[in-house]
């Protein structure tokens, strides 16, 4: 650390290097500013200011007629339900894939330190499947499914199920491999089956972490299902999209409030669950 000498003329000995770094960074930044059409002044031209003002002035008071609130409540529940069902389906797919992908559950590895070729092949293909599933963003899955099954929650549930099975499978395998494998190995060496080794060796070791990651993902799924509403996959996102298109500021503002509350509530529930089940 460069301790500053308050008496010296140049308090910072790294002064030259820092200025150079800043110049290089600015040179690199320029094409990026171009590419992203970074023109902050358009925020302040008259037309954009007046339309923003018109939209924002609609925000107070938020829409609060009983029919609207009832509709909003239903859409909110739909969002939560899409996230929950999607995550349950993701779990159903992720658990078998995890079992395939986890190296510490391999039997052939025990004797020679190496896995049999076919085991390596199965394990690698399971891992690649997981990579592909989670690399495609959920919104892209949603866009595709909306075109296959039509508008509505089904597309959202499927999109969450696919993306999250990839994420859950990968992280579950990592958790199982990084936790203490003594018990698992002892069981496998003494002839227990792979499932028994999982249930009595690996799971008790790692259950707290697994539960905590799953609830965290549930929280993410709620956010994701709101977003997917914007491409027509149901829930509060779809309503917000409709209200935005009509520039109905009052409706958008109550939706944003509901949305912030929903995220905060999901956060609370998932903290609570982690404490309870971990």
């Amino acid at each position, binding site marked *: *650390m*460069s*301790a*500053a000498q308050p008496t010296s003329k140049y308090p910072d000995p790294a002064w030259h290097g820092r200025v150079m770094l800043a110049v290089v960074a600015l040179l690199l*930044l320029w*094409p*990026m*500013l*171009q*590419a*992203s*059409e*970074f*023109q902050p002044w*358009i*925020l302040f031209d008259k037309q*954009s200011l007046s*339309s*923003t003002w018109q*939209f924002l002035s609609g925000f107070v008071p938020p829409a609060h007629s009983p029919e609207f609130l009832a509709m909003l409540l239903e859409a909110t529940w*739909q969002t*939560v*339900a*899409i996230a*929950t*069902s999607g995550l*349950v389906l993701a779990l159903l797919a992720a658990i078998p894939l995890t079992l395939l992908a986890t190296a510490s559950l391999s039997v052939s590895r025990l004797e020679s330190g190496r896995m049999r070729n076919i085991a390596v092949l199965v394990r690698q293909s399971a891992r690649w499947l997981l990579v592909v599933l989670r*690399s*495609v*963003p959920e*919104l*892209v899955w949603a*866009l*595709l499914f909306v*075109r*296959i*099954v*039509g508008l*509505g*929650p*089904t597309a959202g*549930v*499927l999109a969450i199920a696919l993306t999250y099975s990839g994420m859950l499978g990968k992280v579950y395998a990592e958790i199982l491999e990084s936790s203490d494998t003594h018990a698992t190995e002892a069981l496998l060496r003494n002839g227990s089956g792979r499932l028994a080794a999982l249930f009595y060796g690996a799971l008790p070791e790692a259950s707290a972490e697994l539960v905590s990651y799953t609830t965290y993902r549930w929280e993410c799924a709620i*956010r994701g299902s*709101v*977003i997917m509403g*914007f*491409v027509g996959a149901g829930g509060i996102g779809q309503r*917000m*999209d409709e209200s*935005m298109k009509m520039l109905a500021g009052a409706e*958008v503002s109550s939706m*944003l409030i509901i*949305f*912030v509350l929903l*995220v*905060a509530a999901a956060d609370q529930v998932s903290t609570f*669950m982690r404490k*309870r*089940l971990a």
Partner: protein
Amino acid sequence: MDSRELTPPPAMTPATVLVLLGLLVLVIASFTTLDLKWGELFTADALRSSSEFLGGFAPPEMATPYLIKVAQATWETFSMSALGTLIALVLGLALALPGSGRFGVTARAVIRLKLNVLRSIPELVWAVILLIAAGLGPFAGTLALAAHTTGVLGRLFADALENLPREHEETLRINGATPMTAFFYAALPQILPQLLSYTLYRWENNIRAAAILGVVGAGGLGQMLKYHLSLFHMQQAATVILAMLVMIMLVDGASFWMRRKLNGV
């Protein structure tokens, strides 16, 4: 094995049972209240039409002029994510100072609330709102990424600053340094590695977000994807999806490498 010598498994407390029951109810309610159309997915008719739909993706469009267009959109997406993250780094750090209680308790509470609101609204929703002020295009997307990421980073930075032992800063203060000098020469160098590693992690997130922001009209690859999908240009859409995957993997790799360098491995 003599099972009598094993201790019985720990009994579940009533509260845990209640939580599990609550979960079960939530899951069942979710599946029953949603109007899920499995029928349209698994009938022979649906299977044929969806396999036709998916078959339309192959082979991806690979003509050179189109590839150039995709490369431009990829660069646009990349710039959006990098700029958005950079703005968020600066704003997040600026907000983290009051957010870590350096300017009093009231300022801390107000800034924390502000950061929470910024954070709980996702990038895509920000983009939809900002489209009104910034117009269609990548600029709105950049601002949206910056808004959400400022909330996330500001909170993380503020927490990091609060958890920092205060001795170094206080030593400088006692010896006559101004509060900001003390911050720049004592606190900042200590949290800098953590700060950069959080920022890189958010950048990985933002590149994914930037790829899809265009779906609502905020520029980049997402906008191309939406355009081609709505016109059923499947082969072009396939190229865009491939470009997204390649870009995401490259950035993940770069960020992983940089973080290892930062941690001195």
